[in-house]
């Protein structure tokens, strides 16, 4: 088949053009946010917020208000609830997150099951990007542009927050406000992404692009660019795959992002897993040495009692 025809054929359908616009817009916003999310160690928070919006979406359908309002309210509410329980108990962050988001998700399922005729659960859970209206497209574009603009204006502060929270505080930045801002933008991004891939898979858009870019980038600005470029490519490829192979659009997009991650994991940079394996085979490694060429070797710690894994501890300081 002619390549041009191959590319143009799906675009003659209005619903596919709209799907493409919504998916690419949502994916770009989520990819940008994901860069901070994974560096903050907040991936699980992304999972939590995306699940916790279900009751908000269901209530919005029942009350006849825009579902974005319900979703945003419950996204923020979940973040606040997690923060409240965290600061008033000795439980660890991942535990509190697990309790809160499953509870809210179950509440959403209960609401949906009590009003079965009005809501299509499958559409909320797995997205219905092929059924979006022109109004939905505008909503995604406006909310997405707003989120993106705030993220980009505040990007240096947010990067400093993720890298060295204490320094940010010491030089007079308001770290509580910045944390809250990032969480609020996370909720907004979830609302934007819901349209494209649904509640279950939106978390993939919030984590995978950042994770892929992190493997490739040595500077944060480059990480942002890589995340956006790869996610746009994966989203477009996913939409076309969905059209020609007749598979679920949300699934196709997320699968493409996972494939990109897999490729980068295997062959990206000198620390790609395949290159490492090849180096190990070509170079005879003397036995007894720890062959760990990852370059991430932590500084030798001077304190004997506390070599605990730092990445997990990051959310706890929040």
């Amino acid at each position, binding site marked *: 088949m002619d390549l041009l025809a191959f590319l143009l054929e799906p675009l003659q359908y209005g619903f596919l053009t709209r799907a493409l616009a919504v998916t690419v817009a949502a994916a770009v916003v989520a990819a940008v946010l994901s860069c901070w999310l994974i*560096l903050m160690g907040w991936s699980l928070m992304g999972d939590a917020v995306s699940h916790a919006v279900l009751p908000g979406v269901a209530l919005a359908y029942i009350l006849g208000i825009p579902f974005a309002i319900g979703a945003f309210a419950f996204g923020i509410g979940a973040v606040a609830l997690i923060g409240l329980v965290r600061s008033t108990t000795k439980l660890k962050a991942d535990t509190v997150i697990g309790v809160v988001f499953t509870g809210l998700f179950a509440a959403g399922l209960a609401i949906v099951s009590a009003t079965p005729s009005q809501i299509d659960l499958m559409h909320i859970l797995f997205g219905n990007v092929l059924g979006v209206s022109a109004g939905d497209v505008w909503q995604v574009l406006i909310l997405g542009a707003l989120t993106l603009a705030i993220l980009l*204006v*505040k*990007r*240096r*502060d947010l*990067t*400093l927050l*993720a*890298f*060295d929270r*204490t*320094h*940010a*505080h*010491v*030089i*007079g*930045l308001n770290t509580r406000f910045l944390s809250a801002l990032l969480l609020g933008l996370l909720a907004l991004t979830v609302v934007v992404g819901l349209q494209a891939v649904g509640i279950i898979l939106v978390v993939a858009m919030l984590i995978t692009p950042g994770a892929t870019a*992190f493997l490739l*980038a*040595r*500077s*944060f600005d*480059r*990480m942002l660019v890589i995340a956006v470029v790869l996610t746009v490519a994966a989203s477009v490829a996913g939409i076309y795959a969905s059209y020609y192979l007749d598979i679920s659009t949300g699934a196709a997009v997320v699968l493409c992002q996972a494939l990109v991650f897999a490729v980068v994991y295997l062959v990206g940079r000198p620390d790609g897993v395949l290159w490492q394996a090849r180096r190990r085979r070509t170079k005879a490694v003397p036995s007894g040495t720890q062959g760990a060429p990852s*370059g*991430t070797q*932590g*500084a*030798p*710690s*001077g*304190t004997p*009692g*506390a*070599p605990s894994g*730092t*990445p997990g501890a*990051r959310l706890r300081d929040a």
Partner: protein
Amino acid sequence: MTTPPGTAPAPVVDVRHLTVRYGDVLALDDVGLHLAPGRICGLIGVNGSGKSTLFTSLMGLLTPQAGSVELFGTSVARARKDGLVAYMPQAEGVDWTFPVSVSDVVGMGLYGRLGTARRLRAADRAAVDDALERVGLSSLRRRQIGQLSGGQRKRVFIARSIAQDARLLLLDEPFAGVDRSSEHTMTALLKALRDEGRSVLVSTHDLAGVPDLCDEAVLLHQRVLAHGDPSEVLTHANLALAFGPLPADLSPGAAPSSPNGAP
């Protein structure tokens, strides 16, 4: 806050009767600390002696149960806003895989006085260049921070406080994981900063570098056990109080394993 006119400039650090408790654990008990401009002070104590808590208090990250903390004759919050304080984290407190370059990190020292988007102008980039030059890392400025050696990593954070033009440097265990030659480089660097009138507070449980670097030393074990010239503070009897009885040294009264410390 009020310095009588005609007297010496306000102390850089003025801590009075500071008491901090975490639940049942007494972290700091009636601690007083006074640091003049242009001095390097070693804060010495075992892990759990309250060094970190004192640093945390100086940075305004906790509310004490009793006592007061003033920096430069004003509140901690005001001193932070004015960019007077810089903090160098412990090596374990830093994510060395983070995608930032050496010059990115040094530039972060300037954020407090930049506009909303924290865009560095030409003068700001020059300040970053100067700071890198002073710590001898100009040639490594594009490196990702994890690609540096232990001593170079520390110097990045010193450069950040130079770019910030901070007047008080809080260094948390700066010599952990640093080889001897880097330690000498850092000592010379810190002394040069001191000679410009900056003050440096160094938290450490490693005594080796203290007499060479510090103008004064504070021995901390929940309370201030001694404060003065390093040679007076680092006596066997004092160290026994802070670190527990040393081999072949029988100082009475020290009970280092109890969380409430020496009586």
